[in-house]
């Protein structure tokens, strides 16, 4: 069993959903918390990509296989279908071309978990509407000029992109204030979303 109690809610869902013993690529794996949970709890063969060298160092120090690299550039070096599951958590909005990255994700992995902040969350809309300025929220605390999020998208945008790319959405989860919420009105109510997709 995976001890998901210390994981961020979207990662806890992924940890629950990934089958035991599979091969996983975690793109933007951070300090490796999810990888370590999958390795220790489900005997998953987990590999990671992380751009921040200090975080890679922490991953290596906990015995994980993590490559310092840029997902925009380095995914291309992995062979087709090398992984059962590819994970892209809170990273798609930082990609140079999210559509291409999504396609790459499902080239190297047979299925993928993708989580991203929902820019149609009502607090965002309200901040933009009432103050006329780019929102700074608890979940996205960085000002517009410093943020790594260069492609702002919504739940509906993602669903449309999946349709355009011919990608099947298998499952979806929504979160607000670090808790899972139901799917109704998610494009308004969800602070961030997690999708399980398949080629």
């Amino acid at each position, binding site marked *: 069993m995976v001890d998901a109690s210390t994981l961020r809610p979207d990662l806890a869902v992924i940890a629950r959903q990934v089958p035991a013993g599979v091969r996983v690529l975690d793109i933007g794996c951070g300090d490796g918390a999810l990888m370590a949970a999958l390795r220790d709890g489900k005997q998953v063969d987990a590999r990671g990509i992380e751009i921040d*060298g200090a975080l890679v160092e922490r991953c*290596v*120090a906990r*015995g994980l296989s993590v490559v*310092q690299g840029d997902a925009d550039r380095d995914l291309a*070096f992995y062979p087709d279908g090398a992984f059962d599951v590819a994970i892209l958590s809170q990273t798609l909005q930082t990609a140079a071309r999210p559509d291409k990255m999504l396609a790459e994700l499902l080239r190297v992995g047979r299925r993928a978990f993708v989580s991203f902040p929902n820019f149609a969350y009502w607090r965002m809309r309200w901040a933009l509407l009432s103050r006329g300025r780019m929102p700074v929220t608890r979940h996205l605390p960085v000002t517009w000029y410093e943020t790594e999020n260069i492609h702002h998208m919504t739940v509906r945008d993602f669903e449309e992109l999946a349709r355009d790319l011919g990608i099947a959405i298998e499952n979806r989860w929504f979160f607000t204030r670090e808790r899972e919420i139901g799917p109704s009105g998610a494009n308004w109510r969800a602070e961030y979303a997690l999708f399980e997709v398949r080629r």
Partner: protein
Amino acid sequence: MAAPSHTYTLPQPLPLDGGQAIEGAAIAYETYGELAADKSNAILVCHALTGDQYLASPHPVTGKPGWWERMVGPGKPIDTSRYHVICANVIGSCMGSTGPASAAPDGKPWAMRFPVITVRDMVRGLVALLDGLGIERLHAVVGGSMGGMQALSLAANFPERAARVLAIATTARHSAQNIAFHEVGRQAIMADPNWRDGDYYGHDTAPDAGLAVARMAAHITYLSEAGLTEKFGRRLQDRDAKSFGFDADFQVESYLRYQGSGFTRRFDANSYLYITRAMDYLDIAEEHGGKLADAFAGHAMGKGARFCLVSFDTDWLYPTSESRHVVHALNAAGAPVSFVELSAPFGHDSFLLDVPPLDRVVKGFLDG
């Protein structure tokens, strides 16, 4: 030269990439820490071009501490209270292993009759030593620079012999620039009249001037420009004004001269020729049909070794792009690999110097 603690004489001829074989080759080595009863805790550390087996014990010629004493020892990142650490002088070198200064079957020094060797030949020698020690599978093979080349070559050619491969500040192929710098060094040695076509062993003089120049040129490639500027700038050496002559006016000149002359006390010029040649010949992809990923095919998903590569942002001799090239090949082969580029001001030499994140990566990788 001082006798090493242990010498293993290979019972079989050592076959070489050049087609020849060396009969009765000797491998000099040092060990640190206890070997477990099941021989599962051995770590082989491979040394760099001018390194030797004195990894964590004083050098018998210079009296200086071992070349990686900051990394290897009880409680250190390569912890000798846990691991049995082996470091052997490569063939072709001059600290007790068979090389051009050793006696050939006719009793005279090999000199330039010594066969040209490759990094893979060095690794064959090391694997023969492991066979002699009864170590089937290493806990890890570790090396920086040419040591990293040996680690990668061992992984490519003997995939079952190591469970972990840690290659630091290294490359899987020598570039045109790498070869060019080595050629400057070799030509400096060969241009020294005391080189005598390599037959200087019976004479009072050795090609020390040429070897010193070779070392000076190479030493520049081990440092970063920023590091040199910080250490020396344009400061003058023991004088207030330029001499308008060709003394070592600048501190950096004096430093390089000191590095060059110190080196000739402990290293054989012909060994320098042979080992630099071996490095220039390195192209692990070429050895395996031209595709580097194929060289690591023995490490696909779930079997073989775990890899870790480390580069330094100021290393222009074997820059990060070379490590990435290896990482991409390992990814393509499906091998488990970690890679990190560390920030350190010392250029290529960073792997030998005080870089705390390197300590953490080495320890984490070896213990994980």
